[in-house]
């Protein structure tokens, strides 16, 4: 009996991955980011949040390959002497966690509502769809800004956990980038599956409707959702970065990439480009690799293209 | 001279698990005005044969070997532009689903006129006249008015008639019909079959009728080719193939069909199933399921078409050298 890993590797999806150098590249970059994020404490050469280790005399050092740079700070330092590389690694972790959590929350809400709407039909379906229409008619970033901004204005000193919670909520409800698209997709798939004969067979056997919804229909509607979610991670990360850039995202004590970019923005015109450019490059790399992965996944899972 | 001649056609599909041979050395000929039936179960390769002839083989499938000759000229290796001229003008096609065979956004008249004008040097007015005449010939009532209707305004049977009219629009010599009646009700099926027969006889067009329904073959065709696992198992005049099948597969197939005349308790069943493309047995493809598999030769050597009475069968039973009376 072949192991699951080998079976996956040898499957059509596995082959598609191996055949596409772009997908492999994207997967590698994404893997490196995730690794750094998980093991930030061991990977980062310094801890940028430990005030005791900061040396103001090392502030605003350019990257190591410049004449004034030092090998101790590979990508330079910011105005408070924090190592950019380490801040980058910790920032990546925050961005990834927030992005993934945002998508996870969107998934939970969206799939649940979509299943309910598709399986029940009637006025429940109508109500859910109208809510979707209303939510998606707002520009995505505006809603997120609204939620995060108002929360920050009301509770400027909220503990870190609450701040992140609000941020994740803002991402999940960000208009048509949030849970709405999952709800619509799942609803459409549910309506298709509901008419299929294996569902009717379950009804003939007497299986209760809730069990049919979760045990029969749900496993069959997750396909398109997987692709959507992967691509949406990139959007969520960028949304989070935007919010942080605008000052209402991650709290300043745990800066994400967006915060770093904002901080560095102030020093851009005085010549210290590295403080903002490197977080920017990192952001682009993550978003690009996740997007490419999502693209590849969509093509790989599409039976007609195989 | 035969109108269409297929010689040793081999169609392959390269997959990452190796190259699959969907058609393996298919050879037959169609005389002008003849109706040839190609029958077989799903996976036998009959639709692929039709698609190869029309030139609509979907990539990555490709013709790996063999030739297709239309009136003596090779057509299988032609570039797209030339193939397009042949398709429609000399070979017409009818597919299974009348709903998707017609463009829902154009009226029936527009589609007919487009086909006629693409292939025949006639004016628009004359094309329209021909279109109306075609609709009348295919038995659509009130053709003058219905020519301006959209496909969704026709019922299933009527739509298939329109598809037949479309196939005949450029006056082709050969029509390839792939399961033209499968999606239709039994009573409509009878109408369409009769229409196909009469209109092809009057216009002198030959027909290659692909189907899995032996009854339709029995009523319509002059000759029939029985396909199995990408090869032709038996070919011959329809009456002889049905009543005196020479190949054990054909015999089994005939016996398995419930028919209206005899009363039987259990239908004859051929055990097992048609082999998958990546697991075709060596030698004769039917040998694992054959009740008459009688010698090692069946398992090692693949038989070609051997004369067996009025038909030809790919079976060693009929090889005079085998010394076995079939």
């Amino acid at each position, binding site marked *: 009996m072949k192991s699951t890993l080998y079976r996956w590797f040898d499957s059509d999806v596995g082959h598609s991955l191996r055949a596409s150098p772009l997908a492999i590249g994207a997967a590698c970059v994404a893997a490196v980011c995730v690794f750094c994020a998980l093991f930030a404490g061991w990977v980062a050469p310094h801890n940028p949040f430990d005030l005791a280790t900061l040396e103001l005399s090392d502030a605003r050092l350019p990257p190591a390959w410049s004449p004034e740079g030092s090998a101790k700070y590979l990508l330079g330092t910011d105005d408070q002497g924090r190592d950019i590389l380490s801040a980058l690694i910790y920032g990546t972790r925050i961005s990834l966690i927030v992005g993934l959590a945002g998508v996870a929350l969107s998934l939970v809400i969206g799939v649940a509502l979509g299943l309910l709407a598709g399986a029940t039909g009637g006025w429940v379906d109508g109500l859910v769809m109208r809510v979707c229409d209303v939510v998606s008619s707002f520009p995505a970033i505006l809603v997120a800004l609204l939620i995060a901004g108002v929360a920050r204005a009301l509770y400027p000193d909220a503990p870190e956990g609450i701040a992140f919670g609000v941020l994740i909520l803002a991402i999940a409800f960000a208009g048509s980038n949030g849970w709405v698209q999952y709800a619509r997709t799942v609803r459409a798939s549910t309506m298709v599956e509901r008419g*299929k*004969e*294996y569902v*009717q*067979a*379950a*009804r*003939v*056997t*007497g*299986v209760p409707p809730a069990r049919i919804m979760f045990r*029969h229909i749900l*496993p*069959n509607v997750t396909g398109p959702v997987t692709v959507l979610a992967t691509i949406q991670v990139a959007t969520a990360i960028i949304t989070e970065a935007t919010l942080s850039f605008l000052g209402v995202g991650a709290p300043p004590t745990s800066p994400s990439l967006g915060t770093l970019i904002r901080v560095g923005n102030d020093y851009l015109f005085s010549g210290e480009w590295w403080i903002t450019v490197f977080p920017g490059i990192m952001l682009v790399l993550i978003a690009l690799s996740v997007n490419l992965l999502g693209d590849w996944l969509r093509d790989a899972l599409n039976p007609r293209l195989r | 001279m035969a109108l269409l001649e297929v010689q040793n056609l081999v169609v392959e599909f390269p997959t990452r698990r190796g190259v699959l041979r969907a058609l393996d050395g298919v050879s037959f000929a169609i005389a002008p005005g003849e109706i040839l039936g190609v029958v077989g*179960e*799903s996976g036998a390769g009959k639709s692929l044969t039709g698609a190869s002839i029309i030139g609509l083989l979907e990539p990555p499938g490709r013709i790996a070997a063999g030739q297709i000759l239309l009136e003596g000229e090779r057509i299988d290796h032609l570039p797209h532009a030339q193939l397009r001229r042949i398709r429609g003008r000399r070979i017409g096609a009818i597919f299974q689903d009348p709903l998707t065979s017609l463009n829902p956004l154009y009226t029936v008249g527009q589609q007919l006129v487009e086909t006629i004008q693409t292939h025949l040097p006639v004016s628009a007015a004359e094309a329209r006249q021909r279109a109306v005449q075609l609709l009348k010939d295919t038995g659509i009532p009130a053709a003058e008015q219905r020519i301006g209707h959209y496909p969704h305004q026709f*019922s*299933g*049977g*009527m739509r298939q008639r329109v598809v037949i009219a479309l196939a005949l629009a450029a006056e082709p010599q050969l029509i390839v019909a792939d399961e033209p009646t499968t999606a239709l*009700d*039994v*009573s*409509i*099926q*009878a*109408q369409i*079959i*009769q229409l196909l027969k009469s209109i092809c006889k009057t216009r002198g067009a030959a027909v290659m009728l692909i189907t*899995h*329904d*032996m*009854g*339709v073959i*029995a*009523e319509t065709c002059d000759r029939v080719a029985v396909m199995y696992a990408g090869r032709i198992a038996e070919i011959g005049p*329809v*009456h002889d193939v*049905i*009543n005196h099948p020479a190949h054990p597969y054909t015999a*089994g*197939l*005939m016996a*398995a*069909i*419930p*028919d*209206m*005349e005899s009363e*039987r*308790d*259990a*239908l*004859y*069943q*051929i*055990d097992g*199933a*048609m082999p998958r493309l990546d697991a075709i047995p060596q030698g004769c493809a039917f040998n694992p399921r054959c009740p008459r598999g009688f010698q090692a030769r069946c398992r090692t050597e693949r038989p070609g078409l051997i004369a067996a009475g009025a038909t030809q069968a790919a079976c060693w039973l009929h090889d005079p050298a085998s010394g076995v009376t079939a």
Partner: protein
Amino acid sequence: MSTPAQPLVPALASPLVRAHDLAKTFDVSAPWLNRMIERKPRALLHAVDGVGFEIARGQTLALVGESGCGKSTVARLLVGLYAPTRGGFTFDGQDAHAAFQGKEARALRRRIQMIFQDPYASLNPRWRVADIVGEPLREHGLVTGKAALEARVDELLTCVGLSPQDMAKYPHQFSGGQRQRISIARALATAPEFLVCDEPTSALDVSVQAQVLNLMKDLQRKQGLTYLFISHNLAVVRHVSDHVGVMYLGRLVELADKRTLFSQPRHPYTRMLLDAIPKMHDTGRARTPVQGEVPNPLDPPPGCAFNPRCPHANARCRAERPALHEAGAGTRVACHAVQEGRL
């Protein structure tokens, strides 16, 4: 409402299933807003319009007809997937519709099961065969413990001609005929008495069809099953059924035992249907095809539904709808011409 006159079955055996005046209407009107604006009337589809029949224990009733005649709807009415808008049916003496709504629903669902047409859509592609076949067992609590469940699934798979190793596989690893066998195994899990089969072999090749039909007949003999067999293929029907009902536009036009129906069809539609079947061994003979097509079920003709296509229609046929009445030899026909002796 048509009274069930002389039953087709011997008076001693009370039928297992008796349907009377079964009807199902679907509301296919446009949404309310569209109707208001475009002034469209309500559109009601009378998919089944007053169907009555009996099935004796251990026998097979086949319902034949072309697309749109309502036979699939009848099948779904009999397994409780739809509730009838009028009439109903009794199962083993009790009112089935009331039972499906009430507390006896579970017990009734154990005794009635269904086999579907499409072997590719009738099995959940994400479930293993063991789970698919075992679901009715778990749902009704018929076996306790994993070992007992596996043993019973084992038994069922062997019963339908599959091997016990197939338990761990997924549906996409099987061919159409094998999937249909898995469907049959699932249907037999609760040891039902009545099986409704909705075109079980229409999607299968001829040789596979033979295997599945033989299997079904075999099971019927061994387990004393009662079948309602829906099909559009008269040759298959002739092979499997004991009694045959011909449907047209939601109504039963003829109901007879098999031999009588095929040797002496009375209703004009039945005659035309039989004549339309291609005859295999009588090659080259021209058939007289039926004229016209099945009318739009949303707008059925007044009177007898078949009158536009019937060569024997008269004024009464166009005005009055015929009821199913006795026509001798245990046959029931819904036709004025037959009743008046014109045919």
